[in-house]
């Protein structure tokens, strides 16, 4: 008779139901016993209940950390995606654009924002057909590149979650109504963006190409509440300066792809993001194994 093998899995759970774990290389045989452990601090945060005697007896110590055995643990439903490795320069720029800190003050608590559901665009009647078409060409170039981000146009405002309109139109987003400049407004819950609006002043942006420039700039920014930075040349959509030759650069698209990649945990704070990367790189270096991110399918809204 085969001896039962015991697998110890240490779970590192983030706040946003994006679970990470060491990749389970082999499939378990019928004789395998799998025990799931969680670091004590995470356990306290997640379960908020006192330890029982049984819990204490099952404590395990590993790498100067106390691990708590999880009883009847079943992995949540979701997709397991391997950690997507990126080099430090890429991550340096990614953190600059994705974590849009308040008042330019870097905070570990700042979270990245992303669209979880499809973006359904509604244009007000004032937006000319040509402007709409040119804009949708731009949108499609993003939609094609980013698998997990779908952007479509809808004809009825009630079917939309993103409105695009001009000054003087019906105020689809009241919080933009008193804004004297063209701007966008997005709403999020648990760092998931669920609604957006762009309001453009067609008096100051008086020609097609100026309107197009503004629409694209604001829309691109609203895809992740991105911070536009001064590192990149003005042609980049992540740069904070104008160029008549603005185009989505190779790096722009890679940053955007990464933002919407399942190979990272989404909606995290900067602190969690850095910690997870550190852990994933450490595991990769020490064991040669790739950490997996499990994206749960349950909606936590």
């Amino acid at each position, binding site marked *: 008779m085969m001896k039962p093998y015991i697998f110890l899995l240490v779970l590192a759970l983030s706040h946003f139901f994006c679970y990470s774990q060491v990749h389970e290389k082999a499939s378990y045989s019928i004789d395998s016993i799998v025990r799931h452990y969680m670091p004590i601090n995470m356990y306290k945060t997640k379960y908020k209940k006192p330890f029982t005697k049984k819990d204490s007896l099952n404590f395990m110590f590993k790498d100067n950390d106390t691990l708590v055995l999880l009883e009847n643990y079943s992995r949540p439903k979701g997709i397991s995606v391997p950690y997507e490795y*990126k*080099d430090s*320069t*890429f991550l340096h*720029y990614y953190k600059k654009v994705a974590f849009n800190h308040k008042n330019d003050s870097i905070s570990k608590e700042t979270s990245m924002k992303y669209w979880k559901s499809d973006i359904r665009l509604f244009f007000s009647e004032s937006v000319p057909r040509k402007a709409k078409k040119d804009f949708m060409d731009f949108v499609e170039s993003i939609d094609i590149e980013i698998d997990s981000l779908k952007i479509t146009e809808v004809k009825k405002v009630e079917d939309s979650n993103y409105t695009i309109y001009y000054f003087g139109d019906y105020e689809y987003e009241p919080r933009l109504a008193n804004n004297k400049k063209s701007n966008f407004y997005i709403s999020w819950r648990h760092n998931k963006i669920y609604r957006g609006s762009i309001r453009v002043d067609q008096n*100051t*942006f*008086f*020609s*097609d*190409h*100026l309107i197009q*420039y503004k629409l694209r700039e604001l829309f691109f920014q609203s895809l992740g509440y991105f911070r*536009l930075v*001064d*590192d*990149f*040349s*003005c*042609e*980049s959509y992540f*740069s*904070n*300066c*104008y*160029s*008549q030759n603005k185009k989505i*650069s*190779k*790096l722009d698209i*890679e940053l955007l792809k990464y933002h919407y990649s399942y190979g990272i945990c989404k909606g995290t704070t900067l602190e969690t993001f850095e910690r997870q990367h550190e852990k994933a790189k450490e595991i990769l270096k020490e064991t040669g194994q790739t950490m997996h991110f499990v994206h749960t399918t349950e909606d936590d809204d």
Partner: protein
Amino acid sequence: MKYIYSGFFIIICQFVLGQNEYIDIIQPRLSFVHNVKRASDSVNFVVLNKTDTLYPKYKTDVDLSYLNASNYSTENIIGRYKILAFQFTTAKSKKIYELKQWNTPIIVFMDDNLPKEVIKKFKTFYSQIKGIPNLSISFTNNLENSNYFIKTVSKEINGYDKDFEFYSEEDRLNSPLTGGTYFLQTDKNNKLFAGILSIHIQGKNEFAILKQLKQLFFMSLGSFAQEYLSENSDLTNKYYANSGVISTSDLEMLKIHYGTIYDRPINGTIFNDILKLSNPQ
């Protein structure tokens, strides 16, 4: 720890050796490309995946001869330029004026309500600006193709704040900002990319309209200030004589202003640093 020491070493070197290169003063913006062109590009590259790497590309050599006063008609040309662009301010001033540049060709559309003769003379006047690097001015008859709209307005407008105090009523009436103004679209890098010049033409003759348009437009080429110190043939002079020819001094202002398109916002202090670099003692 070794990084901290390296950082200190760099800072100390900068103090001891000073700023020797343009990029020490103005950190360049990067575009990332596939080709490696310089050995230095092997630093700061971005690995996208196992087979794809992007390398930074940026301008390293900037010809600063446009800042050398000996290339111009008068020695105090830089002094006048500093007034126009920075209004005597530096990084330490209470209110800081920063340099503003167009980084796209200016394509002007002029309102049909302007007198035809004014439009014609205005275009002729500004057609004299040629051969200035990084500055292009042209005209179009289609608003859709433009990024600069010169329009007439029926209501009286002023380009100065309500609490602005002129030296005299004559001064106020003579100001191009009385009955006219301009509004420029700017980005976070002080680059200009669209403009609207509004003028109230009721009660003004063609001479006055043309003079005001010429002055306002010139000011909008760099959000330039007005001053008393120059000649009255210069467009920023408060007593501009409405000359038919653009002055040498004005052309030289534009040569200095558009000598290079700066990658960063420039205040008076940074400009002085660049100036020192162009004229080492």
